[in-house]
């Protein structure tokens, strides 16, 4: 078997494929490409790609099929979805179905590179765990050490319902582990609205990378954790308690929690 490329890009636009290839070269990723879902599936079945970058709206199917395929066939690839039709539903659905990240089009070089960077780190963490617990680690499941009664959007952000009408929001430990040392956190202000699946905070890390956190729930911010502003490391130390980001009044709790993964779930 020849050496696999690091990334498989599936998109029907040649311009975007070309751009992604060029960008990936900046960080020394090798890239394989597919212009249709069909060729994409063929390539996935033939070789193992650590990371798959796929568009959602394709002429011969939608990108979610990749996620289904990977889950059904127990393939170890990490998937990052991207779409020009960057609706909340697409973003949330992608994460719910097991994508690592969702990148709305159009994106900048840095946005794509930070997402790939996190994917690479995630992959590395998984490898490490695989070696540490070779028996316990069956398949590709990677546990997020989320406390009970917490629910999360993908592997990135969590939410915890303190009481009726008040929810805490924060970042999962795994997400924190995939990024470099956090140097600065850009947060929304009190009374701002956040929406599920849309960026609600940005971590500025070393190497000029910035990572966006997709909000796990929609709502109005009633309190911002000022402690983490002054001390971003608090998130790394205690992501689930002291390191919370916002206290919000959820806008559509019942509906949106359907797309969250509960701590008891064995799903990624």
């Amino acid at each position, binding site marked *: 078997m020849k050496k696999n490329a690091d990334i498989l890009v599936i998109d029907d636009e040649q311009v*975007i494929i070309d*751009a992604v290839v060029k960008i990936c070269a*900046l960080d020394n990723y090798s890239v394989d490409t597919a212009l249709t879902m069909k060729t994409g599936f063929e390539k996935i079945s033939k070789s193992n790609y650590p990371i798959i970058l796929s568009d959602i709206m394709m002429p011969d199917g939608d990108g979610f099929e990749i996620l289904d395929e990977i889950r059904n066939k127990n393939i170890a690839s990490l998937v990052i979805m991207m779409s020009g039709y960057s609706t909340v539903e697409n973003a949330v659905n992608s994460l719910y179905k097991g994508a690592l990240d969702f990148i709305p*089009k*159009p994106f*900048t070089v840095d946005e794509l590179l930070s997402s790939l960077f996190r994917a690479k780190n995630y992959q590395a963490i998984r490898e490490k765990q695989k070696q540490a617990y070779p028996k316990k680690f069956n398949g590709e499941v990677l546990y997020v050490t989320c406390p009970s009664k917490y629910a999360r959007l993908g592997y990135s952000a969590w939410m915890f319902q303190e009481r009726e009408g008040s929810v805490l929001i924060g970042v999962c430990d795994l997400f924190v582990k995939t990024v470099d040392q956090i140097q600065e956190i850009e947060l929304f202000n009190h009374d701002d609205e956040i929406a599920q699946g849309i960026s609600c905070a940005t971590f500025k890390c070393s190497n000029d990378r910035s990572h966006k956190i997709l909000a796990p729930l929609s709502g109005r911010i009633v309190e911002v954790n000022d402690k983490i502003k002054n001390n971003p490391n608090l998130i790394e130390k205690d992501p689930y308690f002291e390191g919370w980001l916002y206290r919000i009044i959820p*806008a*559509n709790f019942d509906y949106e929690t359907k797309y969250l993964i509960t701590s008891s779930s064995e799903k990624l």
Partner: protein
Amino acid sequence: MFNQIGVRLIFVVALTSLIIIGVFAYFNIKSQSSSLLSEVERNANQLGETVISSTRYDMLLNQRERIQQVITTIGEQPGIRNVRILNKVGIIIYSSDTTSINKMVDKKAESCYVCHAANQPLEKISITERTRIYRLHPDSSRVLGIIIPIYNEKSCWQAECHAHPKNQKVLGVLDVTISLAEVDKRIVKSELDIVIFAIVAIIAVGFSIGLFIKKWVSKPVKNLLYATKQVSEGNLNYSINASGKDEISKLGMSFNNMTKKLSEARMQLFQTDKMASLGRLAAGVAHEINNPLTGVLTYSSFLLKRTKDNPEFQEDLKVIVRETIRSREIVKSLLDFARQSVPKKNEADLVEIIDKAIAVLDKQLSLKKIKIIKQFDTNLPKITIDSNQIEQVFINLFVNAADAMEKNGGNIIVSAQQLSLSPFGIIQVKKATCRKRHSLIDNEYKIDGLPALKVKVISGGKEGIIHLDPVYGKHHNFFDLDFSIGKDAKFVCPECNTSIVNPDKVCPICGLPILDFEVEGQGIYEVCSSVNSNWEKWDFVDSTGLRPYIEVKVKDTGIGISKEDLPNIFDPFFSTKGQKGNGLGLAVIWGIIDNHNGTITVDSELNKGTTFTIRLPLTQQR
């Protein structure tokens, strides 16, 4: 011509007056001529008595020449045709017409007939019987004949001439005939007068009635007719100039009201449709544009990274990246608009929300010298709404109002009140089942955006599905069948083929079967199965009566909106603010209110101000 209501009315009035005047004229002429005749009769009687008494003395003295002279003299008077005295056997003794003297009179003649009609001649006749009116020839004028018997008395049989014996009762008869030509002429004249009067009166009545009918009935009806034509041609802005207090003016006003309501409803419907198609368009466009934008953004940001040591390029590339990111934000807002998230409704205090919106804009408004005047009903109940969205609505409305003010400020009057409106045309059937509890809601087929009710029709060996409007009272049904529904048609549940026809009832309008839908917890929704009938009934909803709404009016004293712009203000991208606005504000407001099952309408007068009226149902249907 006769189909015109005015002409008919004039005809009926003219006919009625003709009959009334005719009857009046008939009786009037009759009474006039009879009083004229009786006057003539009285005169004739008197004349007869006069002749008898003036000749009496000469009779006693038997001076025949003198008697003849008196009779000739009287006979010469105008109007008197003939005066004669007959003896008891019928021989004319004296006469004004001397040629007939000594001639025998025919007993059957008109003048003798009174007494000689019976076999034995009468000896006494009453005064009324003495006169007779007759014609001598059929074409001559009428004459009045009077016969006065001359009775025997003591002085007659004792007179020296001994001409009459004592036992004779009637000595002779005085017969006077008077011409009625003069009288007849007068009767004809008065008949003519009355006919002329009647014609003049009928013309006058007809004319004046016609004039007022034209003014009060024909013209307004014509106006109404023209207005309905205008409306049917689609000009819903046409209004009638109706200012009076009569029924037709009221009809006109009610017509204006109706077209106004119709145009509002049409606008609302149109808007929903437009929003939906625009949403699809925006989503499609956004997707299409995002792909090329990705190319621009990735390449430019790629170049930006690669030319870090070339500050000359850096500046230019930064502009490209910045502007592309700006385009990205614009497309994103377009998508946000197209999406217009489903409202997340909770019980809230509307007054509090309005106060919040005012607080947000407080500084901005006081800078512009704009005062907000609040007129809220006390004890407004809580309302189920998405507080954030509704707050957005009021912020947008206040900003618009503020923008509409001239530099020297003005007032914004916000008023809120509770009112009750009929649920007809608002309430939606959300869950409907057949008798075996199969759902009859078709989520695949939507009518005006709402899942329709589905019914299977089996008729003449063919079958198909019809779709009924789920909104009670809207009747926007779809009968997409390639066959016609016959009398034998069966209406059944598509799943279990159980009939859903009400076995005990038929449509009160067309007599065709009624379909029954069991609505979970909300009784039975009945609807006529015919394409043509609009009959439907939902006792559960009807029994709840009027539904409570809160009506909020936001009125400003700004420059107002022109009549041409008014129909377009809720259109996306329509803006009168030029560069200042993106034209989405009111479109978003409209969408939010529509999502709350409410309505928003606008009234505006140039240079006086604009009023937005929002009606929100107190509770949302679940």
